[in-house]
């Protein structure tokens, strides 16, 4: 449905996106994750035809965005960052304009407007001027605008910024609902958002793709195995104890004094470590879980410096 090949974008001398390739299949919800300035917005702007790439090709629904922008724009709905809106129009006038622009007429038009008002919970705000709306309602108007023509593809740039936790939950639920029959690309710098909404993630850093995969894949890769730091308060690690450790887990590094780092095997938990210690005459003084969270992965992938340095930064 969306196919980006070797996308490249320079703003003057500034490199915004460098050699980014990815594809999104029909019905997927894909998240672009990255710190501010990583190139997320630029990629979305290229896909929507707002900017043309300096090099590379973006194909949306079989059309080249730079060669056939109008065809591409017809099949996508776009919510730009911060949901810019025409402040001097009312919600009704604004949606009227969008319906005009989308060439909706007659019944379709009335139905489309009624549908998005209901879906986005805007029925009570219909005749208010947009500049009097709260941030949450503005975001919903932006979303209503994007889905008015029931597009196959939705492109959402940071759909939840500036919202309070309840509104964030609502918008996420809404996007999830929409995502059941649409292709969605959204950008965010919030990790939980990706976990909450996306089937697949592209992690961007400094204009390049640093990692990609399904949320589970990245999660597994990023979270890694469950590792515990174990401090032995009594007894010593005999060869027998070492052997008994098989099946429970394995030592990550050779022990330094009484401190062991043990990675648990699949399906094992901290209680198994206790049982192993008791069985082998060891007393555990401390058991500290050591885990790669998505946050750690993200930080390590996107922290300043090279990828090599980033790997070292992993705990």
């Amino acid at each position, binding site marked *: 449905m969306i196919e980006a090949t070797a996308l490249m974008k320079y703003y003057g001398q500034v490199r915004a996106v460098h050699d980014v390739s990815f594809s999104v299949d029909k019905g997927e919800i894909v998240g672009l994750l990255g710190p501010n300035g990583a190139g997320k917005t630029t990629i979305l702007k290229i896909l929507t035809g*707002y*900017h043309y790439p300096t090099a590379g090709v973006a194909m949306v629904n079989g059309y080249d965005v730079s060669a056939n922008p109008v065809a591409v724009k017809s099949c996508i709905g776009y919510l730009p960052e911060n949901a810019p809106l025409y402040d001097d*129009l009312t919600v009704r006038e604004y949606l009227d304009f969008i319906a*005009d622009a*989308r*060439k909706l007429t007659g019944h379709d038009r009335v139905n489309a407007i009624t549908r998005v008002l209901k879906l986005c919970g805007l029925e009570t705000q219909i005749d208010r001027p947009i500049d009097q709306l709260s941030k949450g309602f503005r975001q919903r108007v932006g979303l209503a605008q994007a889905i008015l023509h029931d597009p196959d593809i939705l492109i959402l740039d940071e759909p939840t910024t500036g919202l309070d936790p309840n509104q964030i939950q609502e918008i996420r639920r809404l996007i999830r609902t929409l995502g059941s029959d649409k292709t969605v690309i959204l950008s965010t710098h919030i990790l939980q958002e990706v976990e909450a909404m996306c089937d697949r993630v592209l992690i961007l850093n400094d204009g390049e793709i640093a990692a990609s995969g399904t949320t589970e894949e990245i999660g597994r890769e990023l979270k890694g195995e469950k590792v515990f730091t174990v401090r032995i308060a009594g007894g010593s690690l005999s060869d027998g104890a070492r052997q008994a450790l098989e099946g429970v887990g394995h030592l990550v590094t050779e022990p330094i004094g009484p401190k062991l780092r043990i990675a648990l095997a699949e399906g094992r938990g901290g209680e198994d470590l206790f049982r192993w210690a008791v069985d082998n005459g060891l007393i555990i003084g401390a058991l500290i879980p050591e885990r790669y969270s998505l946050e750690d992965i993200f930080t390590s992938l996107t922290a300043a410096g090279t990828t090599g340095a980033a790997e070292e930064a992993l705990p």
Partner: protein
Amino acid sequence: MTAILSIVRKEMRSYFNSPIAYIVIVFFLVFTAVWLFYVAQFVAQDIASLRAYFGIMPIVFIGLIPALTMRSWAEESKLGTDEILLTLPYRESELVLGKFFGAYGLLLLVLLLTVFVPFSVTPLGNFERGEIFGEYLGIALLGAAGTAIGLFVSSIARNQISAFILSAVGLLFLTLVGQVNAIIDLPTWLASLINYVSLQYHVGSFIRGVIDTRDLVYFLVITVLFLYLNVKTLVFRKWS
């Protein structure tokens, strides 16, 4: 066509939802009427001609047209709404024409409201219908060229204030540059060149009631040229 109309409608709504349309209309009508009856002493002059009325309009346009066009692109890019507009399924030419007819439509509306002045004074004397028609045509053409210039400036300006100042200065220059010839004696070629670019010079013959195709062509060329440049600016921005 429906695409262009949809933008015209949106622009019109923006104008009339904010005070700008009303300010422009009232200012233009009051100023030109005051000029005609008090400054130009229309009644005391006792001449059956509205030259003074139409003659002041190009000067008023210097401030009025930038006020109409300053927001059109500059405000869109400042608020980020151009991201909406430029990602809706429009061609750049449709966007530019929609913006143009939105602003120009309001200007024509203002001109339409001035007909009360000719209507109310023509019974007083032997006015030439043709002259008044020519005057309206000239002012309307000047308005089109001015609007196209203002829109183009708005598309390259960073915000509406600089768009206003830039286009007002531009229009001021193009309107009054012909005055140079009245002050100093320049070589003929330079004088006619200056006259050729001067908006005032071309509108002058219309105001005297003469419709010259060269003046007509001049205004159309200026209008089309700046609308074209406007389209190019939009396309250029996508690549930059």
